Each structure stands twice: as C-alpha cells, then as structure tokens.
C-alpha cells in the first residue's frame, strides 16, 4: 500500500518537472530537467511492475536523449525568446482538454483492477502459454520476439528509417571534407585527466553490461532494444573522451551503416528462413527440429538483429550531429 503512496509522490513531482520544463526560457535548463523527467518516468515504470520498460527508459533517457539534445543545442540557440502575446487561447484550450480527459478517466478501471478488460483478452493466454510454447521466463521478450514479432519488425524499420532520415537531412552540404578540417578541433576531453581515466575504465564495463542485457533478455529484464542503447551509450562515452575522430576510427561510418542495414536484414532473413523451411513468415518453430528450441533460436537471432540496428542507428545519429558541430 505504501508503494502506491510512493507512486503518487513520484507522479506529483513528475507534473512539477513537466511544468518547469515548459516554463523555463533557458533551453539548456530544459534539457537538464528533461533528464530528471526521464529518471522519474523510469522509477514510475518500475513501481508499476514494468521492469523491461523501465530498463529501456533508463538506457535511452539517461544518456542518449541528453547527448542528442545537447548536440542540437550547440548547433542552434541556447535561449528561447519570450513570447508575450497569445497565451490565453492555448491555455484555455489546454485547460478544457484536461478537464474533459480527467472526467473521462472515471470510466476507466481503477489502477490494478484485476477485472479490467485489458487483463481479460489475450494477455492471460500469453502468460499461460509462454513457458509451454517458448520455454523462456521473460514473457515480455516472448511477446516481443515471437507472438508480436511482425510488430517489432515494423518498429525496427521505423528506427532504420529515422536513422536514414537524420543522415539525409544532416549530411547535405559536403560534410566529409569539413569534418576533416575540423580534426584538430575535436579533441574531446583530453585535457581532463580524471574523467578520462575513469571513463576509459567504464567503457568496457558498459559494453560488457550491454552484452549481458542482450543475451540475458530471455531470463530477466532486457533485450535488443535496451542492449543496443546501452552499447551505443558506451561508445558515445568513448567519443566524448577521445574525440569524434578517434571514435570514428574505431567504428567508421561505413561500419555503422552496415550495422543499421545488417541488423534489419538479419531480422527479415530469419523471417524468410522460416518461410523457406515450410512455416509462415517469422514462424521460428521450424528453425530447429524441436519447435521450442526453434522458437528460442529465433528469438536470440532477432534480438541480435534488433540490438545491432538500434546501436548502429543511435551512433549514426550521434555522429551526424557531432560532425555538424565540428564544421
């Protein structure tokens, strides 16, 4: 019961943070508050029994979002110009909308109501059949990988498309020549001994932990999406410490693009392999003689594809922003 009170407290300060983000005129402060907002969201997800979602929010919100927003801020403006007029109409619209939505919530089932419609339909079937059909403890990974594998394939392609879009938009205008001139500029944090030593120590651990999350995703919270984000964060840390160029020397743009394409391709090919072996698209049970083992092999393969694509996309996006900055 006390945990419910914790949730109420966390949600209250979540609202305060959101108001503060909208009110502040300093965009840098807004980004800092956004990272606090993300921490609060993760804690709330955890309290609401969604460990996998909380892990995703942790992996994305703590590092990547802040880094990308700061990269964009460095390229644009750091302050917002105050708008004095025309605030009343949006405020009125928004207040009415909030009222209507709060009024509508009384028709929803209470928090944790076991009779809620959402718990009646397909979810009990997933929970009941996962140990039998897939043989792994983490139902979220099972649903993500096989029961709704088609959906996940779509999401992977959205990430892929977003990455290609960012590269198209930001690379226009002879980026490569300019980034070479800027080599001397991007020294990273070389002059800061303490962060450099500690950071170098941490990079391998972050990547190792990412791999653990990737391959432990069937047994605990984790999976390709989280692992890709964590590994990308580790490599971004390397780039921050050693400078852009050194990070690109370790993982060139071509390799990153290959990862983006290769991961998505791996996912699709697993689906096609299922068809060739006589099943349906993304039906993994034909991949091995024992259907349960086949499902597990399929999940490991597609999770690897997801992880590779997510890691490659996030790193490509980071490098695209950083290269603009240097030019």
């Amino acid at each position, binding site marked *: 019961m006390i945990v419910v009170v914790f949730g*109420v407290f966390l949600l209250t300060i979540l*609202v305060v943070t*959101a108001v503060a*983000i*909208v009110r502040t005129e300093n*965009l840098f402060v*807004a980004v800092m508050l*956004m990272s606090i907002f993300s921490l609060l*969201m993760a804690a*709330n997800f955890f309290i*609401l*029994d*969604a*460990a*996998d*979602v909380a892990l*995703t*929010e942790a992996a994305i919100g703590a590092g990547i979002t802040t880094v990308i*927003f700061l990269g*964009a801020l460095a*390229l*644009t403006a750091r302050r*917002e*110009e105050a*708008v004095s007029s025309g605030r009343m109409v*949006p*405020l009125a619209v928004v207040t009415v909308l*909030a009222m209507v*939505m*709060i009024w509508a*919530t*009384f028709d929803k089932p209470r*928090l*944790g*109501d076991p009779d809620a419609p*959402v718990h009646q339909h397909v979810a009990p079937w*997933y*929970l009941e059949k996962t140990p039998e059909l897939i043989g792994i*403890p983490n*139902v*979220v990974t099972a*649903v*993500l990988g096989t029961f*709704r594998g088609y*959906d*996940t394939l779509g*999401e992977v392609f959205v*990430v892929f498309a*977003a990455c290609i879009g960012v590269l198209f*938009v*930001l690379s226009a205008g002879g980026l490569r020549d300019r980034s070479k001139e800027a080599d001397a500029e991007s020294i990273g944090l070389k002059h800061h001994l303490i962060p450099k030593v500690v950071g170098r120590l941490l990079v391998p651990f972050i990547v190792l932990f990412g791999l653990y999350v990737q391959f432990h995703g069937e*047994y*605990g*919270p984790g*999976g390709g*999406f989280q692992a*890709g984000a964590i590994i990308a964060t580790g490599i971004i840390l390397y780039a921050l410490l050693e400078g852009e160029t050194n990070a690109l020397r370790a993982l060139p743009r071509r390799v990153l693009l290959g990862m983006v394409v290769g991961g998505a391709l791996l996912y699709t090919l697993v689906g096609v392999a299922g068809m060739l072996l006589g099943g349906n698209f993304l039906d993994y049970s034909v991949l091995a003689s024992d259907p349960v083992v086949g499902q597990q092999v399929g999940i490991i393969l597609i999770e690897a594809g997801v992880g590779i694509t997510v890691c490659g996309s996030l790193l490509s996006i980071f490098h*695209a*922003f950083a290269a*603009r900055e240097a030019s």
Partner: protein
Amino acid sequence: MELLGYFNYWVFAVVLVIGFYAVIAKGNLIKKLLGLAIFQSAVFLMYITMDKIEGGTAPIIQDGADGQLYSNPLPQVLILTAIVVGVSMTAMGLALVVRIKEAYGTIEESVILEEDHRS
C-alpha cells in the same frame, strides 16, 4: 483510497496537456520538440498504468511460485518499442531544426514565418 486508483490517469491527463501546451503555445522549435517528448511520455505512462494488476509482479515467470499474478505483458511490449522509436523520431525532428537554423538563422517560429512572408 478509491480515488487514488485514478491518480495515475489524472497525472497522465495533466502531463499530456502540459506537453500539448508547449507544442501549440511556444514559438521555439526545440521547446516544441521537448513538449512533444513530454506528450509522448504521458502516453507511455497511461499504457503502463493499465498493465498493473493488484498483487502482481513483473511478467518474468519465477520458478516455484504457482498462483503468482503477473502484470500484463502486452502494454509493456508496445511501450518498450515505442520508447526507442520515440528517441529516433526526436532526433529526426532535431535534425530538421538544425537545418532550419542554418537556413533561417533562427529557430523562433514567428521570425521564420515573417521571413517566409517577405520572400
């Protein structure tokens, strides 16, 4: 206590409209994107609120715990992927903002609209 059961949905509604307000009332494009991220997080919160079940625990099946209730895995799967897609989309928006800044020299909506009218 009855009413506390709805608190999550109220917070969802309030945070959603706060994000919406930033999108419609603020002129700064990065502020709009921050508002969009808040809006998106509110939707995540609503889905995850629905998955909670009283006396349940996260849907990772424990050995030797028969009769244990587990929260609903389906909303979690939807939101898990949506978070990663959300950050990619935010990056896409920021890339466009960076290009707008290079073309117009500003990221304030009012100034951009003025420039467009002049040309």
